[in-house]
Every structure is written in C-alpha cells, then in structure tokens.
C-alpha cells in the first residue's frame, strides 16, 4: 500500500487517471479517431495485398517466342526456299489474288528475318517490243514491292530492277513458256 499524504490525494488521483488515459490507447486495437485537421488530408492506410487469379479459366494457346532457324549461307538457296515469285497477265502489271498471297508469305519471311534484303526483278514474255517491255517490267517489279511495303516491310530493304524481256526463264515460244516469263522474281542480296 502506497502511503500518499492526505493533502496530495486529489493531485495523485488526477495523475493516475491521466497516466491511465495515456496508457489506454497503446493497449487498445481500435484506431484512435484523431480530430480532423483542416490543413492536411487524412493519411490512408495501406490496404492488404489481395491475391488475384490471373490464369484464364479456359486454355488459350500460348504465344511462344518463334524459333528462328538459321538461314542457309547461299543467297540463291534462301530465295528458292523462302521467297515465292509472282506472275502477271499479258501486258498487265496488276497483282492477282494468287500474287497477293505469295507476297504475303514473302512479307512474313522478311519480317521474321529483318536483316534480309531483296531485289524484285520485273520480267516480260517475248511478245511485246524490247523497249516497251523494259518499262512494263519496271511496273511489275514496283507493284510487287509496293504491296510488300504496305504489309510492313521496310522500303529500303527492297530494290527493283527491270529486265524487260531480255532474261527469260523459259526459252520456249508457247503460252506455257510465256506465262512463266511474265514474272516478278525475288533475289536475295543480303542476310
């Protein structure tokens, strides 16, 4: 028993109550509601981290980073394996649906191997005149290049040459040979 002199008992009581009051907040788990201070916004407590299910409920195919196989050293082998030539109607330079498909495949290849550079050669069959065929060959090659560029291949990776009718693929003189010679031919110039 603490012997507190009679005359100090009210002061002591006050001190006891004050100390009790001071201790009470440390003991309790309830947040203390501080009086609002108009100058500062009320600090927000960190919410606990919630775990979220990320994987889909159904199974989508995963987008894998593509396995890029090494290209052969020989430029001609690369062109033969990966690049398709396109063919044209007599006296025309427009792209057929088939040509567009072939060019789309070529574009995919070129985007997969960004260091490859190509030349598109424009060729004509023997039936037109020499002079006109040189200009026609240029239009054919340019039409193919334009489509590749539209599909996203960089302009400076594709060169264009017209050979007119001077370098036919098939020396024959029938429709079969002519059809083979009206062509946009792809040649690899760098890899």
């Amino acid at each position, binding site marked *: 028993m603490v012997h507190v002199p009679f005359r100090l008992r009210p002061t002591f009581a006050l001190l006891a109550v004050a100390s009790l009051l001071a201790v009470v907040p440390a003991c309790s788990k309830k947040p203390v509601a501080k009086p609002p201070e108009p100058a500062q916004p009320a600090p927000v407590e960190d919410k606990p981290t919630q775990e979220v299910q990320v994987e889909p409920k159904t199974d989508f195919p995963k987008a894998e980073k593509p396995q890029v196989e090494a290209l052969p050293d020989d430029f001609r082998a690369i062109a033969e394996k990966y690049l398709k030539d396109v063919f044209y109607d007599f006296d025309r330079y427009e792209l057929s649906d088939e040509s567009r498909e072939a060019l789309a495949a070529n574009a995919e290849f070129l985007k997969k191997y960004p260091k490859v550079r190509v030349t598109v050669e424009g060729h004509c069959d023997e039936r037109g005149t020499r002079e006109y065929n040189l200009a026609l060959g240029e239009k054919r090659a340019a039409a193919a290049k334009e489509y590749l560029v539209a599909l996203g291949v960089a302009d400076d990776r594709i060169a264009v040459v017209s050979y007119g009718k001077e*370098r036919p693929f098939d020396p024959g003189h029938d429709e079969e040979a002519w059809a083979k010679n009206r062509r946009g031919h792809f040649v690899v110039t760098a890899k």
Partner: protein
Amino acid sequence: MMTRKGWIGLAAAGLAVAAALFTVRAGAQGTAAPPSTTAAPPPGGALPDEIAVSISRGGLTKIAIATPAFPVPDAGTADPAVDVINRTFQADLSDSGVFSLVDPTLHPGLPGASLAIDQAAAWRNTGAEVLVTGKIERSGTSLVLDARVYDLKSAKMIMGRRYRGTDSWARRVAHTLANDLLYYFTGRNGTFLTKIAFVSDRDGSKEIWVMDSDGDGQARLTKTGLLALGPDWSPDATSLVYQHYSGGGPRLMKIPAGGGAPIPLPTGLDLNAMPAHSPDGSKIAFVGARKGNSGIFVMDSTGANVRQLTPTRGVESAPCWSPTGREIAFVSNRSGSPQIYVMDAEGANVRRLTFEGSYNDAPAWSPDGGKIAFTTRIGNGFHIAVIDLATGMQSILTDQGRNESPTWSPDGLRIAFSSTRRGKEQVFVMEADGTNARALTTEGNNFSPAWSKVGL
C-alpha cells in the same frame, strides 16, 4: 590558123584544166562542201540533161552506172587490196539505192587516158549513163587510186579524184569514192563511212557491238558480262551512251566509240533506259523510273540537271528527238495501249500521233523531219511502219518475220532494223521504201541497231 592537132591539144588541155584533182588522205570524207538541198544543182556543175535524177518521196529514179573493176597495178600479180576496193565500191553503189550497176558481162574494153567518142558510145550501149574507171598505183605500202567519172552522152569527164591510203585502208578508199559520187549526184553526204551500233549475244552475254554500215568489221565494245542494251551515238559519233546492268537497276554509261572504260552517268533513279542524244549533243533524253512510275526524263549530256518531262503514272518509253531538237516523240500507254506521242522538248504540248493499230512503239524520226518510222503490231507479228507527219498517211515496210527498232541512215535513204525472218534476230537494212532488205549480221542474236549520224 589552127591545125587539127592544135584543136585536139587545146581540147585536151581544156579537159585537164576542167578536171579537178584532189588528193584525199585516208580517213577524210572527201570534199568538204556542205550538202545542198535536192532542188539545187549538184556542186560538180549542171548535169547534162540526159541524166535525170528525181529524188521524190517513195522512190528514186536510179542512175545507170558502169563500174568496171579497177585493174591491179601489176598485171598478172594478184592484189587483195585492189579486190577489196573493187568489191567494197561496187557494193556501196548498188546498196545506195541511187545507182543501178550495169551488168559487168556487157562491159566493153577499158578506155585509156581519156574517153574517145566511139568508146563512150560502146559503154552507152550497155545501158549506162555514167562510167567510173581509173587506175591504182602502188608506192611502197601505200596505194593511190586515180578515179575518173565520165558522162557517157557527152564523153566528158565530170569528176576526177585521187585517193591515197595503205592496204588496211582499202575499204575506206572505196567508201570515200562512193561518198563523193553520191554527193556529186544527189547533193547529200554519203553514208558509206557511217557505223551501226547494236546489241549482240554471240559471245554469251548481251553486249554493245559496232560495225560498218555495210556490216563489215563487227567488233564488241562493252564487257559487262551481264547485260547492256539500247546504244545511242553522240551526234559527232565519238561516243555512245547505253544502258548497263550490273546487278542493280540499269545505269546509263558513256563509252568512247573506239572502246575503253565506260563512265557512269548517275541519275539517282531506279531505272535508266533507252538513252537518246539531242541533235546538238547537249542533252540526253531517257526513260527513268522512280518507285515504279516510268517517265521520260532529260539531263545534260554530262549527267547534270536530271528532270522529268512526263508526269503521268502510266508506262512511258522510247524517247526520240526531232532533227531540230525542238520536239520529242515517245511511247505512252495513257490511252490504254502503247501509242506514239509527240511533245515539245520541255514536255509541254503533248499530242497523240498514232491512232491505227493496238500497239505502236520505238519511234525513229527521219533526218529530214518529215516522217517517223516505228514498230507496229499487226495480228501477232511486228512490222516497221512509217507515218508521214504532214498527211498522217501510214505505210508498212516489212511483211515477213518479226521486225522492230527502226533507225534511219543519216541521209534518210535507208532504215536498219532487227528481224527474225531468217530464224534468229538479225540486224537488217532496207531502202526507205521497204525494198531490198538484206541482213548485216548472221551470228547469234543481234538487235537494237543505232545508225551514227556522221561517218567515222
């Protein structure tokens, strides 16, 4: 009082004085007088009335000429150079389209130093109006041809020439005499020393070759190993510009006429094709393309100041200058099929020229400016056509094989072109009316002829 001998002596002296003797060094063109128009009398003096020379569109009245072989200097000893002179000279005259040679089996005896009246009559009986005769002498390694040309009606010598050259110049001696004869009778510069450039693949790759305009002396000029096309002569015939492939887009290159290292004419364009020198040599028109759009371009002959003349998005090709240099003919498919158009040299005032046929290409302007020869498609074949610019009338000059790429001789009397009528494509030459076509090449494929504007 004059004795008869005196009169003969006077006449002989007069004849000697009247004859103009010039010493011609090998390589020269002959007399330097400028050609007159066909309306003026020839520079040798007024022709005797009997020799009528009418040079009209579509045909010539030929001059009947007797050209007995010049005899060898040393009778009994063969002289190949003399054979060359005789063969070359006679071929030149008969190919010229101006002369028709009298059958040599009809030739009477050769005159001596002068032509007697009865000898002239004998020669005239062969059908000839003109006789060319003379003698060849040798001094060391050079030979001298003394040629005399007689009008047979009057038995007068109307032209005399002395030509000097070595054996290797035998052809040039003959060509120069032929040029001089042609100039005398027509007032036009002869073309016998001119050359034709062309493309040949006989060595494996298509390269630029050059030959004499009678087909002799075919020699290769370029060594691309890949492809060379479209040769075009500078107006002074000292160089050619052509289209050179070496893997990338074709570039225009300039090469000396005698061969040597070619010099590129860079333009920065993707396609550089079909060069054509302007008549004054200051500019070159060509087909250029940027991003697939081909057009007619012009640049200075040094390669500077490249500018586009035709701004369309279609197919344009084959530029060709008018002889004045004020206009350019070219091919465009802007109407839906290849047709020939004409514009002024700055690219303005474009007008269509051909309306017949579905495919017209390769215009070639005649040296007198009045006609344009071109390639036209008829059915499945191609032929050489000529359109008269004043009347718009067209005529077709060929009728067999596939015929392309006409080029005019500088006197406008002949056209060289390529034809497949003998199988492979060969360079042919024909009269401007389509007659007398003959092949100049036989080996490999030969095409795209270009005739030099002056002799070399």
